[in-house]
């Protein structure tokens, strides 16, 4: 009879972790197994990441390329150091493939908030992350 509790307890443990990560570390309520989908406007459609690439002779904003869209979606859903670093490393690798200099990648994760009366939309920064490319002289 003990096995009967295993799946429901597993669900509860994951849900409690998801709530903790959502409240403490910016995980969107829609993801992570806490059953918060359709409960808030703070989800992928209203989150995004701005990318600025810097080097000695350049500083430019870039769109997320298709090859990194999934990694960007993961980082937007949970803007943690490890996911943002992996996204930045992916951007650096791509720049190098095109022989473009890159020393710093600046990532800004934002979400859209809506006024509760007028619904006026504003962007609010969730997390700013700076990745300095190692071994740059």
């Amino acid at each position, binding site marked *: 009879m003990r096995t009967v509790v295993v799946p429901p307890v597993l669900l509860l443990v994951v849900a409690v972790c998801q709530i903790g990560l959502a409240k403490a570390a910016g995980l969107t309520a829609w993801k992570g197994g806490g059953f918060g989908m359709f409960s*808030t406007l703070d989800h992928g459609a209203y989150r995004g990441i701005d990318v600025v690439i810097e080097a000695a002779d350049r500083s430019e904003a870039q769109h997320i390329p298709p090859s990194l869209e999934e990694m960007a979606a993961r980082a937007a859903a949970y803007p943690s150091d490890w996911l943002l670093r992996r996204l930045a490393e992916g951007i650096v690798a791509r720049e190098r493939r095109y022989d473009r200099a890159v020393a710093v990648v600046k990532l800004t994760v934002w979400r859209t908030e809506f006024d509760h009366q007028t619904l006026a939309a504003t962007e609010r920064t969730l997390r700013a992350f700076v990745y300095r490319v190692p071994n740059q002289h």
Partner: protein
Amino acid sequence: MIARRSLEWFGAAACPPHLETPLRLTAIALLLRPMGPWFVRPAVLAAAAVVLISPRALRTPAMWAAMAALVGVRIADNWPLADNHIYLLAYWTLAIALALGASDLPRHLATMSRGLIGFAFACAVLWKAVLSPDFLDGRFFRVTLLTDPRFTEAAMLIGGLSEADLAANRRALAPLPDGAALADPPAVIEPPRLRVLAVVSTWGIVLLEAAVATLMLAPARLSPVPLRHILLIGFCLVTYAFAPVAGFGWLLLVMGAAQTGEGDVWLRRAYVAAFLVVLFYSEVPWAGILLDLGS
């Protein structure tokens, strides 16, 4: 003893015929929505096909345990992007494996089904009613109906918006940088019918989910069985007419069917019929057809 228990996981369990229906429907749901990366998807599809073809595989705990593990790998592969029903699918396939390995399969499966639905719905209510800042005040459905393309037809059919209204609203709701404000901001067009739809959706879904959670988690003597099934089927028939996650609806209906007794033939048929209705919801653009007929 351990060796014998291990071998039991690879042998077919004794499964009452009436419980084969929810097991088969679970496999069908897996086939209808292929998921995961290349190293998971073919294995899940193959396992689902095998349990549909082979009555022996259908009753083998190891098959379901393997499917639970594969779904777990799919969740971990691109965490945290998997939808919540993928988690529920992992728990459910694990529950089937454990129930097939248990001495009292019907009771084990029904108990785990009630626990999973009950706690999933309780978490959903907790998020909507307590943890989210923008649900109970109506913002979630107001903005979603105005901007989410998946709800366009509902907003037009029930809310009374035109295509021009929707386009204007999407422009009006484009975000401004933090701290910025327009001198003359465009007004958002919200017909009274749309505001009513947002309020009814907001409170209707919370109350319905709370009722299902309560009935699933309450002790059996306090939870009228017919009401529990009526609410669950009703929830699926209403919600998945609009919510674009048929996979979640199928899973809930399968888990509801697993709570039926041997004599509940008509109830099981109702679950199968509701499973098919959700299938038609997802494959037939019924709201678009109604809109076209209306115009």
